[in-house]
């Protein structure tokens, strides 16, 4: 069948199996060139193997939960959405969450996802107690920060290339309500935006929507959104009786992909102007339900289709703190001059992180989508170069087009990753289309 990631680019004809038990999974791993696939929310080709894509949808059971410690043990195919619907009513939330709840536990671990609280809590890996991993020999190894810790640290952010994640123990976060106390700060340019982030180091959650198309004095104007889990006292009295009930919202859906997409310089510019103006009107504090706060795009099913049938690519890099101001300025300049950019551009301050192959580092990350065409692909290559010049690196869960050379230049850890892959036949057993492209 034809497979792609969330960006609908690139598309590959791939053989897909969905094993129902460990014996069958073992047999598939033994065939080689396998890669586990969760809910297909990586943007590019991370979870595609043309020869042997292993769909984990049947490994989707919750195994145990400790009401005292908040540790959930679950199979890799369990969705973040299921964890929330199961445990938020009991006062627990994900400790770290990406921008969609339609991701699997296995996928989140493989990408070592980060969230709006990265500057405080780090990536998801900090909340994983252990992982059961099926290696190239078909044996299942439990790895943790104490036992088999090398394997554990390579598996976080290892994009499924260390083995198949079967089960994991995840420490959930205790919350009093399903609401977020949000503060919205409009900032007129990039300097002010970064200043706002630096001043908000104590906020639990921080993220900015950034206008990538405005030029001149308004370049980098943003809406900085800070958030805290609302306590019971933060809620208006009538809501306190049922603090986890936030109501269900109607879902919109994009029914089909138009041939060329609806996103172009004009529509995005108009949207951005409107969005910023609306933000300045609503500046200040307010209560937002968890779903709208963390997952605004999940409300539009199949939103990936709005870029058209050819799909889109997401560019996400992180720059070290010391070169962030200058580097982000250069990136925005390049993007706004090209007049190509999406309304989904996000800027975020990241905290310090030591890890084997995970994406985050202390500094600033910028993420935005481009419809795929020759012009935007060329633009993204220029953005790669600017990122390299400033000592930054790229998020593999979003990547669909980078070259092996760019990866090596951006990330000196690649060499050790390859050594790890060379060991124990991992390179033979596990291979995604992305790993092949990046020569991993």
């Amino acid at each position: 069948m034809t497979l792609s990631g969330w960006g609908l680019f690139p598309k590959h004809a791939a053989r897909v199996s969905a094993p129902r038990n460990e014996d069958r999974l073992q047999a598939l791993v033994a065939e080689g060139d396998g890669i586990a696939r969760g809910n297909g929310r990586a943007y590019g080709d991370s979870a595609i193997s043309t020869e042997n894509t292993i769909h984990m949808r049947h490994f989707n059971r919750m195994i145990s939960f400790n009401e005292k410690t908040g540790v959930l043990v679950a199979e890799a195919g369990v969705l973040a959405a299921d964890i929330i619907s199961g445990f938020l009513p009991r006062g627990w939330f994900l400790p770290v969450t990406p921008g969609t709840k339609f991701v699997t536990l296995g996928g989140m671990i493989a990408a070592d996802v980060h969230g709006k609280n990265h500057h405080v809590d780090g990536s998801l890996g900090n909340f994983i107690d252990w992982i059961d991993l099926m290696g190239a020999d078909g044996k299942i190894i439990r790895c943790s920060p104490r036992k088999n810790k090398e394997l554990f640290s390579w598996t976080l952010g290892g994009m499924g290339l260390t083995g198949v994640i079967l089960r994991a123990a995840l420490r959930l976060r205790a919350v009093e309500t399903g609401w977020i106390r949000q503060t919205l700060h409009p900032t007129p340019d990039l300097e002010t935006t970064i200043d706002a982030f630096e001043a908000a180091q104590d906020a639990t959650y921080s993220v900015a929507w950034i206008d990538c198309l405005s030029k001149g004095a308004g370049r980098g104007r943003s809406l900085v959104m800070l958030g805290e889990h609302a306590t019971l006292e933060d809620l208006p009295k009538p809501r306190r009786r049922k603090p986890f009930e936030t109501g269900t919202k109607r879902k919109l859906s994009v029914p089909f992909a138009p041939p060329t997409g609806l996103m172009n310089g004009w529509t995005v510019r108009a949207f951005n102007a409107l969005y910023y103006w609306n933000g300045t009107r609503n500046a200040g504090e307010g209560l937002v339900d968890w779903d709208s706060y963390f997952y605004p795009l999940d409300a539009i099913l199949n939103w990936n289709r709005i870029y058209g049938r050819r799909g889109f690519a997401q560019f996400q890099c992180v720059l070290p703190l010391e070169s962030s101001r200058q580097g982000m300025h250069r990136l925005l300049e390049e993007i706004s001059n090209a007049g190509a950019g999406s309304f989904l551009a996000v800027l975020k301050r990241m905290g310090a992180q030591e890890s084997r192959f995970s994406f985050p580092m202390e500094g600033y990350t910028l993420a935005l989508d481009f419809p795929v065409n020759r012009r935007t692909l060329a633009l993204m290559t220029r953005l790669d170069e600017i990122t390299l010049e400033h000592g930054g690196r790229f998020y593999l869960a979003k990547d669909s087009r980078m070259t092996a050379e760019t990866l090596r230049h951006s990330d000196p850890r690649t060499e050790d990753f390859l050594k790890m892959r060379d060991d124990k036949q991992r390179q033979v057993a596990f291979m995604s289309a992305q790993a092949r492209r990046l020569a991993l």
Partner: protein
Amino acid sequence: MTVRPVLILGARSDMALAIAHRFAKAGHPIQLAARDAQSLSAERDDIALRYSTEVSLHDFDALDTGSFAGFVDGLPSLPHVAICAVGLMGEQSDNETDMSAATTVLRSNFEGPALILSELANRFEARGSGVLVGISSVAGDRGRATNYVYGSAKAGFTAFLSGLRNRLAREGVHVVTVLPGFVATKMTEDMELPAKLTAAPEEVADAVHRASITRQNVIYVRGLWRIIMLVIRNIPESLFKKMKI
């Protein structure tokens, strides 16, 4: 929230488990019944954890009809809703030549399901409430060369459900007949099925849950099947016997 338990017979199938999830989500305690029920403990834990509800496991063999009365008496409480998802397709070619294979198919799809629902129906009638759901099949709407052994057993089950509904209509007990059409499950994993006619197990589960509340009588999960089967039922026999469908 509700405390009315739901019994799922033949709980191992993808469809049955999806139905169990749907009712658990609505707050019902769940009784999962199948052969070697203990092997469903991972499913039990999963459902119990996700929906904070009680899930119990019960050994049940649809071919051991003598055990049915004892089985029902042994349940922790008489369920409010009982769903029979027992079924076995078999291979039509085997069913034509191997009479014991055919017997198993006929008994698994008709005798067992009908008798266990009878056992439950009598108790529901005495109580004066409850919903019985039988998962039958569009294959029972008309016998075809490719699966008539399975289809005829399902036809019998459909007729049985219709009669049972008629009998209990004034006794406060409702009977739902479900004709799912193609469903993407383990049973059909290796078949090439038309997407428009193929429901996900969760779709069947939603339909069953809805029907148990709104008291629908006969449901086709995907509406298109109602039209297709209407056409197929009305093809004259002289023509039908020569067709390959």
